[in-house]
């Protein structure tokens, strides 16, 4: 137990990793009920092709929710951007890259519009984005005349494409193998540099085995992912959209955790008055959080258009609820101030795996809806219950810990095992 604490950071029993364990249990359950189908490379690749847009939305939604707001317009904004991008290529014959830049610009404009109302006029985000949902859905249907607009193959790569194959025939996708190797190298270098930096600043350095085991786990996960993405049918590999998602996750994880802006988002959501009296501009934070959400909605919309080869009038219907569900399953608090990028990604994966696994089992989609609804309810009820018992939020806590695993922060906490033992009530929250 002591070793685990050292490994994963302060005050944790293994039970705090419940969310990750839940994910593993869900995978194991479907692995048995679908005869291993769920972990077939083809299925894993499809899972990402099919659900990445929700995870991309969840990245922005978690920041909105941490800041104490909500965004109901993301589905309509995604559809609005999608139709403009599709039109720009099919009607005005713009090249794909120009269409993508246009899409991002439109997303930013829409975001500025919504941010303006939330931050400066102080209309509650619920209302602003409910209005946005209606406005941009209508705008989508006017621009597209309520019909589907097809998109060219050159563009569809961003939603449905893979990285190209090259080099000798290894029975695996060489590009995927390369990305896997680079990731593993990066993990090792980051850990080594963290240790070196601590040594240089004369901070305590955790035992070597801690670094080895921790990095080892992450390397193993990377290897499995590399195999799953790389061992699919010829012509497939890691989907472009999964790479987009991965890069965005790293960027937003970094923003929320390591930048001043990220701190300010948590501060405003946790206690806006205290934040303002500490010199944080709540207006600026609210504006950028809302604006950023619409930019990510634009990304999600464009990716989805690529995946379905066309932009349609009903694209994005109900996406806001999928994204919000992912964030709350991932341990965010309705009242704001609590939530993490990694938690939301895992929450999104749980929801996506449920849909995917139940479909593989041949359960009809109506029932899938019910089960997903119940999972959301139970996951949040469990969190509320554990908070009402005076314990820290289990889901929130475990996500924080998860996030800390690959940074140097946890080693900071790991220096204090003795004092944690002095606080027995904080050790075993289970």
């Amino acid at each position, binding site marked *: 137990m002591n070793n685990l604490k050292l490994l994963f950071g302060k005050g944790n029993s293994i039970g705090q990793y419940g969310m990750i364990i839940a994910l593993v249990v869900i995978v194991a359950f479907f692995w048995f009920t679908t005869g291993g189908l769920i972990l077939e490379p083809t299925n894993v690749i499809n899972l990402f092709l099919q659900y990445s847009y929700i995870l991309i939305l969840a990245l922005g939604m978690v920041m909105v929710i941490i800041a104490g707001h909500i965004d109901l317009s993301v589905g309509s904004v995604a559809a609005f951007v999608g139709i403009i991008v599709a039109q720009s290529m099919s009607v005005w014959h713009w090249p794909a890259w120009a269409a993508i830049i246009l899409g991002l610009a439109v997303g930013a404009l829409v975001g500025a519009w919504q941010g303006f109302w939330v931050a400066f006029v102080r209309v509650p985000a619920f209302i602003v984005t409910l209005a946005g949902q209606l406005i941009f859905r209508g705008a989508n249907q006017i621009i597209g005349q309520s019909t589907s607009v097809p998109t060219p193959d050159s563009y569809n790569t961003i939603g449905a494409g893979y990285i190209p194959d090259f080099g000798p025939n290894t029975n695996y996708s060489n590009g995927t193998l390369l990305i896997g190797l680079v990731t593993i190298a990066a993990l090792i270098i980051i850990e080594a540099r963290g240790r070196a930096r601590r040594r240089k600043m004369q901070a305590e350095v955790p035992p070597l085995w801690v670094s080895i085991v921790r990095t080892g786990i992450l390397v193993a996960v990377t290897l499995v992912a590399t195999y799953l993405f790389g061992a699919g049918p010829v012509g497939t590999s890691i989907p472009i959209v999964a790479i987009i998602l991965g890069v965005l996750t790293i960027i937003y994880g970094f923003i929320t955790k390591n930048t*001043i802006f990220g701190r300010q988002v*948590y*501060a405003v959501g946790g*206690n806006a008055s205290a934040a*303002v009296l500490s*010199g944080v501009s709540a207006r600026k934070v609210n504006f950028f959080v809302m604006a950023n959400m619409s930019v990510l909605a634009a990304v999600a919309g464009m990716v989805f258009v690529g995946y379905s080869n066309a932009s349609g009038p009903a694209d994005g219907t109900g996406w806001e609820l999928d994204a919000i569900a992912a964030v709350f399953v991932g341990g965010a608090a309705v009242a704001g101030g609590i939530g993490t990028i990694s938690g939301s990604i895992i929450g999104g994966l749980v929801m996506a795996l449920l849909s995917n696994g139940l479909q593989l089992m041949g359960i009809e989609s109506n029932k899938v809806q019910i089960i997903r609804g119940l999972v959301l309810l139970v996951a949040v009820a469990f969190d509320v219950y554990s908070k009402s018992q005076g314990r820290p939020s289990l889901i929130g806590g475990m996500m924080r810990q998860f996030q800390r695993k690959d940074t*140097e922060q946890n080693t900071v*906490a790991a220096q204090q095992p003795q004092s944690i033992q*002095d606080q027995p009530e904080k050790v075993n929250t289970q």
Partner: protein
Amino acid sequence: MASTPIETGLETRSITAPETILEMRSITKEFPGVKALSDVSLNVRAGEIHAICGENGAGKSTLMKVLSGVYPYGTYDGEIVFEGEEIRFKDIKQSEQAGIVIIHQELALIPELSITENLFLGNEPGKFGVIDWTSAQLRAQDLLARVGLSDDPDTQIKSIGVGKQQLVEIAKALHKDVKLLILDEPTAALNENDSQHLLDLIVGLKAKGISSIIISHKLNEIEQIADEITIIRDGKTIETLNVKGDGVNEDRIIRGMVGRSLESRFPDRTPKIGETFFEVRDWTVQHPLDSSRLVCKGSNFHVKRGEIVGFAGLMGAGRTELAMSIFGRSYGTWLGGEIIKDGRPIEVKNVQQAIEHGIGYVSEDRKALGLNLLDTVKRSTVAADLQKISKGGVVDSLEEYNVAEKYRKLLRTKVPTVEENVGKLSGGNQQKVVLSKWMFTDPDILILDEPTRGIDVGAKFEIYGIIQQLAAEGKGIILISSELPELLGLSDRIYTIFEGAITADLPADQADPETLMRSMTSARKGATVS
């Protein structure tokens, strides 16, 4: 309103032999770590107005909460006898049924509802949950007449003034058939006219046999209407004075309120005071909602390097309002005045500018305004000056940890690791985190608003030491406190504030509790204002 005759409509009971209506015997109430009331006794005779006086935090409100059932039977020791019977209230509802109604300082009216709806909230006339609005209207008119209010009962509460709202509260109490009315600072938010009308009404009720307990800081009002005065200090009954018999005047009450000697509760210090470097001139601020009220009336004051300047004033006098408006105009609407630092006027229109100009503000309410309770000690420590440990907007987490550790050791904050959530810490340790946060911004002038509120004695002593240390480093300290001993023990100079105006500027060696209390309770000057 003030001229309307008061018709309470109750038949006058004969008060030949004033019998005791309420007797509270040996009431002791403890909160974790604090003994708020210790062996307090209170006797109120039928048909009298009984005042309770004491400093902020003496235990007056706690005693009234015990009486009205806010703290239910079993959470306190001692017994309460009302109209000859021992009572054991489980909640406010029960005490109201017995005829004890408390009117809190913050009025419990719903602004969006009409006078009638508010009057009968929780006691709606009617059957099976269906309200009989006709009888409610008639009853409302009757009740309003008894408190001398002639407004239309359909008026929304938010569109009548605070004075009238207070009357509606009393009408509501009359509807509940009140026998003992408790008023907590009833005139704190009222202007002179409305106050006088309210006091007349209370005297009128007394003539109709309704007893009142009144808590007030305004000693002239107490002297005017009270029959008896019980003085509470540090959770203990000090004395009960009969206003007519004992020849009570304001000075007599003040002596009872502050009567303790100053113990050696403060670390030794030899002040090293430099030149004046911070000055506020003609500072005028309007109430954020009520444009007819000024919360700062052209205040002038200055602070020297290395000086601890105390601000004394009773609750609602405008100390916090002054401090927050100086700290980046965080309170009210600024109407005029300037801040001069190191001989130059500085522009402080928002908190960022205030921090840049070296002003720090430790708020009086650390949970609501000082800390994000969801955050860790580490993150809270650096929250007000993230730039200092960041490059290109990226926070250096190792540096952050080192800073947090440094302040944890410096202030001896008791916390297992700086990764702990501040929400889990005790009040004293939370306050140390807030102090760390502002010390990290390296301010030249640090405003401390009630820095030891809700903190145990040991932690207080440590915080006093920190304050003195900061002054010794040449910072100017503005100390706002409701505890006179604390102000007298720490300050080099003390300003008093009364109703938004600075009424005195006293060097510490010329200040004593009585002089201060006099300038805090009236506009007459206790000393020349420099």
